């Protein structure tokens, strides 16, 4: 007993981490010392501690909603893509996922909400399509710059969309790391505005070659990417939009790809589908942190 206490006391004197077990055996003054050290190191690590009122104030003042420009989706999402959250759009092939991404990007550019970063894995970013979408909404916008000629306005709007092509998961890590570093150094992008929307078109194509099989590295990389995206969203107040595809689930049903571990990652999940040969798509809420799931809405992709 005495030996254990003595051994524990000796161990307690050496420790500086917040290990509660060792602290119990440490002498009283040393216990306080280690606890104070813990407190300051904890504060350096995870920022200040929030209470409920701070959080509420932050949500009402800072966390805005970015509308996508497609009415049905905006009503489903309660306004649009929420800042600080990761939204996933999934659906079978050719159901309009890329169109949702292009519309969100152009809408953010038209309303001058900030810089949009578009990470494209399938070469489906089409500047002509963005120009068509912007032209379609331009008559309604009465933002600043209305005295400039049409071409100039289009140029400034398109300059706020930054597109990068990534073709493998390591390229993706690099791009996200660079983004993180430049945001930490407070470097603003292209014209003095901060980035507000990050779109990853088809993160599932990047993850499909590495997920599965008996080695778990693929899944760990998927979770790392998810953590980095959510961290970026939280720290820098971005909305993140990713797309996913569907795989078969047995008995002819389909389910979103990337498996069970991915299901917990996005804050909001939408499933969209398109009737054959028409422009009308249907969106269903699969998961939402604030609103009820299971609601559907129809929206039209304008051509």
């Amino acid at each position, binding site marked *: 007993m005495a030996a254990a206490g003595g051994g524990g006391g000796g161990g307690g004197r050496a420790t500086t981490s917040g290990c509660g077990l060792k602290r119990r055996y440490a002498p009283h003054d040393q216990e306080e010392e280690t606890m104070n050290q813990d407190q300051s190191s904890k504060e350096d690590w995870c920022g200040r501690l929030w209470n409920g009122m701070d959080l509420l104030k932050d949500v009402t003042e800072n966390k805005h909603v970015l509308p996508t420009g497609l009415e049905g989706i905006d009503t489903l999402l309660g306004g649009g893509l929420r800042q600080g959250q990761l939204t996933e759009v999934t659906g079978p092939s*050719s159901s309009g996922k890329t169109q949702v991404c292009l519309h969100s990007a152009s809408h953010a550019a038209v309303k001058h909400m900030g810089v949009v970063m578009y990470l494209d894995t399938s070469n489906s970013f089409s500047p002509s399509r963005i120009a068509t979408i912007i032209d379609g909404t331009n008559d309604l916008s009465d933002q600043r710059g209305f005295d400039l000629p049409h071409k100039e306005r289009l140029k400034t709007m398109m300059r706020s969309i930054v597109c990068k092509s990534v073709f493998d998961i390591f390229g993706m890590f690099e791009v996200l790391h660079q983004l993180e570093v430049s945001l930490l150094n407070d470097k603003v992008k292209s014209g003095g505005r901060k980035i507000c929307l990050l779109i990853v078109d088809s993160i599932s194509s990047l993850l499909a*070659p590495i*997920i599965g099989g008996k080695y778990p590295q693929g899944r760990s990389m998927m979770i790392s990417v998810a953590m980095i995206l959510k961290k970026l969203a939280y720290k820098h107040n971005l909305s993140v939009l990713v797309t996913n595809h569907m795989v078969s689930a047995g008995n002819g049903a389909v389910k979103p790809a990337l498996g069970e571990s991915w299901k917990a990652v996005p804050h909001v999940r939408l499933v969209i589908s398109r009737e054959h040969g028409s422009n009308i798509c249907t969106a269903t809420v699969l998961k939402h942190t604030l609103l009820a799931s299971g609601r559907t809405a129809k929206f039209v992709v304008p051509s």
Partner: protein
Amino acid sequence: MEHNRSPYPDAVTFQGPRMLGICSLTSSHRNTSLLVLVTSMTYLVAGFTAKKLLRSVVSQGLVKLNWGMLCLLMNTSAADLPTKYDLFFRIQLAINVQIPVEYGGLGGKAVYIDTEGSFMVERVYQIAEGCIRDILEHFPHSHEKSSSGQKQLQPEHFLADIYYFRICSYTEQIAVINYLEKFLGEHKDVRIVVIDNVTFHFRQDFEDLALRTRVLSGLSLKLMKIAKTYNLAVVLLNQVTTKFTEGSFQLTLALGDSWSHSCTNRLILYWNGNERYAHLDKSPSLPVASAPYAVTGKGIRDAVSSHHKRARVT
């Protein structure tokens, strides 16, 4: 080059001069008369003709395939010979990319990766001849001007600019695509890569389905990267299978949903009665549309005249 003369007569009459290298894909409801000449190097325009210079332009649209992947679906059943119409499409693409820039084409070379062995050189020669004849017919004034350019317009030159790879197993297919990057770094003037039946070696005798999905998605990412880096178009051909869902047979792409997700554009070729149709199913910038086309002795042309078309092989 010695080859058998085709049974089709040489003097095939069309209703007007045709502009080569412009694809027309139209929706059955639209009757716009829009025509855009594509000469910039970033756009490769797929195979077949559109425009009648003399007559009024009726129901045209435009498909521009810019550096992305085009996935062509062929309506072939499982156990039959390579039917001729899908072959023409691929060969027509390989030929059309080589039309010199002054005539509206791209003046590039083509890479053809063959997995089934259905590349028939005699037919390529025939299509090249037909293409050249149409060029000369359409640009008769330049006949006197550029005599040096004339020398380039020989079918032998067209054939010499097609790089052909024949692969016999899926490991060879993966190896060729890995090698393609180095190859394209040396041959910078390739503008199109056609892969004939990318899924052929993966459909039979592949036990581990999860491995197949991983390998194919890795392949498609590599091809996307090649298309973006070297500014060319990648055309993949695939087959269609039937799926029995909810009491009806539906045609779906072979190899499942994850493969169909990896392409940028998708074009489905099918028969509608006695007419061949092409249907644009997936595209990031163009609406869904379909257009008829015809296969003639000279290659693929608009479905205007009903003579000299190849009949349906059932």
